[in-house]
């Protein structure tokens, strides 16, 4: 069931969604076994930005029908902190194939976000210099400083950003598309035109929750947004049907491989995304409910007949 993705040999097609599994923290909670038996065939880092970020003020979570709204705000140590402190702890992890035979090395995919093409370039250059990083994922769900719209929501702008960073690395370049757009397939095409080696989707859907009543709403007044970041992103089973539609639309339009994600909880959900055209499947929110979900899903997928 091992697969090759952009030249990387993977034990199985299940990886993690960026920002949904912290291998370093998990090893603190569960011990070193996490590093030897990572539930994912590749490890995607959370989004790294040039400077360090604290993230949004709490509350950061709201449970929705069959889903979760988060407004985490991309807390991270910044590029230097990541490369200096975290990356060394992320190398050398391994995972088992679903059939239990042998162990596979787990490549690190580093997810980065800039707010300009220039920032993206600096991030990509710095990551390119590090042999421990096997591939890069660009998080383009970031507002354009001028228009306020996500860079990734506009096919042309996206193409330009990817084109600008493409020459800076020979490592596989994955573009994580935003689902909050009119035509995600056109965005995927833009990424491909710009030189991306793969696209991944879907990121979370823009969503909101209001403060629960009664407290702390002033009498008669409107309830304010609950999350510190005002809006957040919806993930989990609720978005699975949207993910399937977007993955199918993208896979039908581009020739580069697609990483599908969004609400995957079982091997059948993973197979659905692969049937729709995904080469790999990422698990996000389901890992919160079950830290070893990725390994279970890989086994279930295997039992379904390899895909």
């Amino acid at each position, binding site marked *: 069931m091992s697969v090759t993705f952009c030249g990387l040999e993977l034990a199985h097609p299940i990886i993690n969604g960026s*920002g*949904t*599994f*912290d291998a*370093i*923290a*998990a090893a*603190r*909670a*569960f*011990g070193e*076994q*996490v590093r030897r*038996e990572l539930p994912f065939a590749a490890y995607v880092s*959370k989004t790294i930005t040039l400077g360090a970020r*604290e*993230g949004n*003020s*709490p*509350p*950061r*979570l*709201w*449970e*929705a*029908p*069959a*889903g*979760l709204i*988060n407004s*985490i705000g991309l*807390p991270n140590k910044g590029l230097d902190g990541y490369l200096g402190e975290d990356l060394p702890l992320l190398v050398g992890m391994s995972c088992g194939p679903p059939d239990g035979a042998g162990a596979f090395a787990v490549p690190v995919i580093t997810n980065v976000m800039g707010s300009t093409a220039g920032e993206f370039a600096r991030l990509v250059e710095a990551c390119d210099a590090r042999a421990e990083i096997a591939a890069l994922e660009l998080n383009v769900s970031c507002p354009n400083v001028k228009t306020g719209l996500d860079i990734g929501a506009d096919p042309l702008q996206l193409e330009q950003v990817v084109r600008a960073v493409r020459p800076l690395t020979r490592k596989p370049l994955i573009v994580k598309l935003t689902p909050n757009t009119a035509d995600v397939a056109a965005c995927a095409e833009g990424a491909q035109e710009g030189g991306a080696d793969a696209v991944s989707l879907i990121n979370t859907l823009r969503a909101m929750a209001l*403060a*629960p009543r009664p*407290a*702390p709403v002033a009498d008669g007044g409107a309830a304010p947004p609950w999350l*510190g970041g005002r809006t957040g992103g919806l993930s*989990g*089973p609720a978005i699975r049907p949207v993910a399937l539609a977007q993955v199918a639309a993208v896979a039908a339009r581009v020739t580069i491989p697609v990483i599908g994600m969004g609400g995957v909880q079982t091997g059948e959900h993973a197979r659905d995304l692969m049937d729709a055209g995904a080469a790999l499947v990422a698990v996000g*929110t389901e*890992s*919160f*409910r*079950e*830290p*070893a979900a990725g390994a279970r899903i890989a086994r279930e997928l295997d039992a379904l007949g390899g895909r």
Partner: protein
Amino acid sequence: MSLAPFSRRLLSVSAVEQLGAYSVLRVSDPDGPEPEPGQFAMLAADERWGGGADERPYLARAFSVARHTGGESHYLLEDVGPGSLRLGELGAGEAIWVLGPLGHGFSEPPEGRRAILVGGGVGIAPLAILQDRLEDGATVLLGFRDAARAEGAALLRGARVATDDGSRGHHGLITDLLAAELEQGPAATVYACGPAGMLEGVRALCAEREVPAQLALEAAMACGFGACFGCVVPRRAGGYLRVCVDGPVIDARELDHVDLHAGAPA
């Protein structure tokens, strides 16, 4: 700190017993690691987790280990929403998913300082297992909203009780009793768990008197093991702590104040 097995485990409910306004959920776990006082677990019913109010619960819920004895873990539940409601409905023999023990628990009192345990409401839970483990005994001060909730005090031995409505024990805040206690003997360490307002009272009181305090915090959690970055509280030195992996027990000096938003609005 006890490490959790790297997978949630399907265990079996031994019993759910009423304790005044609360219930005690007993889960059979003969093979699991021994939890330390202050650690917690993420719990979810195997069947029908979902389909409650607003189609919830979806995520697992955090509950302090209230006691661990005879191969059973005990959890103290207050019915505040669809998750605690569903867990409280479980019957003996029903299956429950347990991820844990998680988090960083209480540490031993420093030499020469006696332990004062201060609990509020359902927050008394981790103090019970702490009392079980403290060799030299401890002063136990527990505050509740009313007499029905104050029946929860039976979870600990020799507790002095305060209620908001005066229906049992001291009529007033538990911090009143704590202030008096510290007046008498300031060579103490305070272990506290309860609503944010109470914890902030305890923190301020101890800070003023330079008494060390360990606060067991609550925050909305999606994962419980550091994956989601959702459970943060502001750290005095700047930035945030993740309650699930940096806590739930936090040295009061790490906090500028206990944030009301840390947990649910009271």
